[in-house]
């Protein structure tokens, strides 16, 4: 469901900075349906990959064989990302807060962490440079606190300076795709607000999973479930071994 919602966000012809797992699945679903000309860029340096198998890592050899270009990582970050060529970046995180700030660094204090997470990887610069960012995370109070313990990837600043004041080139996280609803950033306040609900989910179900008083769009939409084509592609073609799809 999350994969198909994410896929629909992608516009044909866009250049997408792809992470492994669900974002990869979403991109390949979009390519197989409404966006055949999507260009996939991996931070590992593969551009225009059409992998013969579902890649298990962002550096999978299947992303190289038959791709359009392989370049060094200095080129990926300087000539492609910082150059402003990425339309959409995908991010996930252990924590996402009211203003779309994302934490993939530590739970607890940085110096004495309760849980040490992997860190930024390319996430900080994707959040800053991609023209827009899609965040993918499952709803739970632990994952959506009012404030993250550590800002790895910046959202919309909240009380502090705006993205524009900080001279961030990209628009940042514009949507958060969860397993129950889609949140969007409110341009006025920079807050995440409820934009659309999955079938059978009520606004109160979402509010209970979020650590701040969640505002709601005047008329929140309903997300259409994956249609038969999408389901068939996901289950039979794109992830037949259920590496990323659960249930």
């Amino acid at each position: 469901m999350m994969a198909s919602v994410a896929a629909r966000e992608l516009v044909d012809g866009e250049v997408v900075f792809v992470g492994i797992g669900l974002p990869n699945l979403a991109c390949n679903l979009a390519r197989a349906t409404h966006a055949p000309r999507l260009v996939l860029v991996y931070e590992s340096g593969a551009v225009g990959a059409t992998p013969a198998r579902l890649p298990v890592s962002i550096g999978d050899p299947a992303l190289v064989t038959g791709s359009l270009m392989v370049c060094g990582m200095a080129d990926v970050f300087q000539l492609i990302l910082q150059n402003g060529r990425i339309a959409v970046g995908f991010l996930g995180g252990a924590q996402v807060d009211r203003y779309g700030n994302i934490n993939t660094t530590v739970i607890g204090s940085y110096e004495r962490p309760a849980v040490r997470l992997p860190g930024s990887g390319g996430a900080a610069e994707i959040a800053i440079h991609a023209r827009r960012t899609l965040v993918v995370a499952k709803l739970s109070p632990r994952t959506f606190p009012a404030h993250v313990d550590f800002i790895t990837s910046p959202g919309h600043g909240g009380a502090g300076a705006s993205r524009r004041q900080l001279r961030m080139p990209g628009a940042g996280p514009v949507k958060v795709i969860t397993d129950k609803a889609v949140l969007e950033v409110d341009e006025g306040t920079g807050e995440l607000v409820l934009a659309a609900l999955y079938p059978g989910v009520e606004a109160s179900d979402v509010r209970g999973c979020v650590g701040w008083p969640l505002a709601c769009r005047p008329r929140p939409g309903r997300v259409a479930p994956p249609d038969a084509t999408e389901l068939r592609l996901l289950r039979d073609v794109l992830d037949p071994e259920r590496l990323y799809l659960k249930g």
Partner: protein
Amino acid sequence: MSDVSKVVSMRDAVARFVHDGDTVVIEGFTHLICFAAGHEIIRQGRRDLTLCRLTPDLIYDQMIAAGCARKLVFSWAGNPGVGSLHAFRRAVEGRGAPRLEIEEYSHFGMVARFAAGAARLPFWPLRNYMGTDLPRVNPRIRHVTCPYTGEALATVPALNPDVSIIHAQRADAQGNTQIWGLLGVQKEAAFASAHVIVVVEELVDEAVIRADPNRTVIPALIVDAVVVEPWGAHPSYAQGYYDRDNGFYVAWEARSRDRDALERYLDDFVRGVSDRAAYLEKQPDLAARLKAKERRCAGVNYGF
């Protein structure tokens, strides 16, 4: 050319170019990570190393577990698609093991540190880090003012390792090294370092290198030693030679979570073998499972 060969054994290369207290880089982004060199460093009992890599991966998790590291400089410390590096986490979370000092960037920051080091500039500018907490916990992320626009840009300091160990598909005996597939920051790391050890799947005649000079990523003039170590990147991979051993990465989650299981692994496959050949003898199925299929490209014309 009548040059003396730089080909040496891994044992000799590590003995000669990796010393206690050194800043050491074993690079490679998923691709071409030289596990063979990491294992030899463990066997020779190196201590107090500052280990640098974008993605510490399983090899640095093993070196941390084996007590080689004093400090880690990195940007993403996980087991990609699988889970955690538990020896790293124990050392950072302060659970029992001696604490590991860390210095943390994003990928772009690490790439920029190597780029500065390779160009022998003291810093590298990048448009990054506004709105993040990284500069708060890493005071080496600073700013510079553009002399044209007046805007502030982030900077990272140059990284100039004592030694970089670069795995590659092939090199000649002088160290002219060719790589294809993912390139990571192998070139920048090598040019940034005081010493360079190249480890290759295949030693080739200089004529093979000269037939396709655009394929050369690292020239002999910066290489100190060439080690020939087929399958030396396993469980990482070498495009055109063997696939990544994903099963090994998946199994690492449980293995590294259990301190004893990790020690047993090191005893069996690292400390308990004399060299890479012995490591491979213990796993006679690798070729059957992982050997690359043929997908050869056409050559191009260099004539004039």
